């Protein structure tokens, strides 16, 4: 018979009340952990978009800016073209360190690789600085003619191949999950793109790429000189009247952060309110139960229990309830949120990338700790009250 066994007995003899208290804490722990997972995944996603983009400035044909962002952020494939000569107009500007171009093509859903339309992107291995680092990181080498580099959501067939327009292409590398539109993209060289465009055409999908691939491009990607203000570069391009839409990578991430910011803000406010509510609800319940149990506490006093002991009895019960609720809630959140990372991401429509296992673990611990704190905090008032009151009055009132 010690305080802990007594607490356990007291709780188990009032199952309805105990389950209620545990539920309150569990709901909170669930929302804390689920909320922080959401938040962290969104931040991760935004960070990844920036990294994957690789370029400081992206130029697309006038009027295609929105579509280009949708490719990156929402994974909505699209293609748009402009004349290759744009590059010559660009290179003269100050502050440019590297320039490369990409050519886009989209598949329709019968591409045989995938249930969804896929963004095909060809790049120029000679000048590329955006995709190559990722490929190297992924397979340690490069990409040859006829080979593909695929995003993480693209499914492979046979011996590491992807089927496009009836033809199988070997996969040189598969990129890690990014939580962005790049997960549903397939990269290849210009030469390979020509082959693919031809295949598409043969299958009855007339492709602008067939004639245009040598003279047309979809985007110009620019890396600024280190330390050069990209804002100035963008100004120059706009002033000069180059017929393009300009996308700054910082704008994309800033836009994302802004959209996320309000979402995360709501989640945070909700969590804080829920936490306070839980403390108040539990506080009231504990206070009611302390009133009900005055006689029990008076009996303890009479037997020689110190005031401290009485407080620890109340705190002990509340801590047990709180610990059970916190663990249960966070575990349920892990069970229901982690496996559905992908569908949550697409439901939100923002880049969404689950954090690393260790980050998840520390968020779990933190959520459990914050939820656990509710019990003792809610009980402390009752505990102090019982610790201070003169016991005789507790005794005679009950009789």
């Amino acid at each position, binding site marked *: *018979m010690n305080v802990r066994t007594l607490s356990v007995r007291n709780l188990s003899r009032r199952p309805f009340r105990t389950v209620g208290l545990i539920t309150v804490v569990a709901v909170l722990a669930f929302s804390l952990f689920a909320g922080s997972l959401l938040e962290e995944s969104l931040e991760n996603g935004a960070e990844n978009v920036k990294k994957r983009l690789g370029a400081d400035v992206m130029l697309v044909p006038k009027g295609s800016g929105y579509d280009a962002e949708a490719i990156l952020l929402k994974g909505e494939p699209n293609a748009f073209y402009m004349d290759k000569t744009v590059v010559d107009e660009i290179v003269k500007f100050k502050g440019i360190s590297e320039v490369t171009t990409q050519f886009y093509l989209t598949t329709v859903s019968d591409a045989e690789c995938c249930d969804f339309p896929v963004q095909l992107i060809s790049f120029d291995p000679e000048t590329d600085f955006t995709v190559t680092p990722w490929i190297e990181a992924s397979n340690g080498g490069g990409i040859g003619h006829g080979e593909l580099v695929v995003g993480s959501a693209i499914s492979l067939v046979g011996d590491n191949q992807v089927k496009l327009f009836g033809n199988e292409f070997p996969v040189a590398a598969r990129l890690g999950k990014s939580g962005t539109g790049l997960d549903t993209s397939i990269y290849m060289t210009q030469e390979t793109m020509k082959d693919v465009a031809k295949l598409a055409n043969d299958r009855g999908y007339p492709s602008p790429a067939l004639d245009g691939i040598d003279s047309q491009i979809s985007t110009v990607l620019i890396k600024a000189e280190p330390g050069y203000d990209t804002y100035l570069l963008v100004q120059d391009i706009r002033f000069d009247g180059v017929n393009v839409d300009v996308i700054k990578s910082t704008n994309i991430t800033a836009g994302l952060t802004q959209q996320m910011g309000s979402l995360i803000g709501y989640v945070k406010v909700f969590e804080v309110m829920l936490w306070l509510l839980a403390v108040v609800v539990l506080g009231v319940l504990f206070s009611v139960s302390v009133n009900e149990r005055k006689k029990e506490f008076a*009996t303890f006093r*009479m*037997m*020689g229990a110190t005031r401290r002991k009485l407080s620890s009895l109340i705190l002990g019960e509340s801590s047990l309830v709180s610990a059970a609720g916190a663990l249960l809630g966070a575990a349920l959140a892990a069970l229901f949120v982690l496996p559905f990372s992908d569908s949550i991401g697409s439901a939100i429509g923002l880049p969404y990338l689950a954090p690393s296992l260790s980050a998840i673990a520390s968020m779990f611990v933190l959520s459990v700790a914050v939820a656990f704190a509710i019990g003792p905090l809610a009980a402390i008032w009752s505990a102090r009250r019982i610790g201070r009151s003169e016991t005789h009055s507790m*005794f*005679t009132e009950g009789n």
Partner: protein
Amino acid sequence: MSVVETESLTKVYSGGVRPFSAVSGVDFTINEEDFISVMGRSGSGKSTLLNLVAGLLRPTSGSVSINGRKISELDDRSGSFVRNSEIGYVPQGQSLLGNITVIENVVLPFTLFKRPGEPYGRAKDLLERVGVGDLADSRPKNLSGGEQRRVSVARALMNSPSLLIADEPTSDLDLETSSQVMELFSEINREGAAVLMVTHEPDTANYGNRHFTMDAGKLTERTA
């Protein structure tokens, strides 16, 4: 040395409309062989007096000593320890904890402070002794009023106190059970514990060997 000694013990309740002196200037001494009965009208301050003696209430003025230590001046921990180890308290009415078994209730006072030894054997002996040994593993709510009272006596005896305090120990018991409980008290008293008991019933009071009357906070001994 006397078990209990009070010096102009006074308790004024200041919570009400005007301050109310529930116990005023009580001087008395309880010796080891005493079995004291206190009678008096309702509201005369009997329960207040018992609580003062047990150190559950702080006197407004005056003092209480238990075996030479002024319990009214000790800090909470030391005072609680004196109460735990030297005083057995049998309160009015039902006072067993409902969520634990009878024997666990009896063991409880033993566990409140660190002590060497194993309490269950002694608790079982005490239950046998008060005549409810077979109920050790029952829940208190399944016991009759008389059985519950015996269990609370066993609990009061758990730490071998030198003073047994009882507040109307027979008020809710039938005549036969009352006399059984009182026989038990007499026995405990003969074995060396002083008894301080409040009662409304002359029959119960008769078990005592010293008789007091409480009237408006004043305590006076009746001499036969």
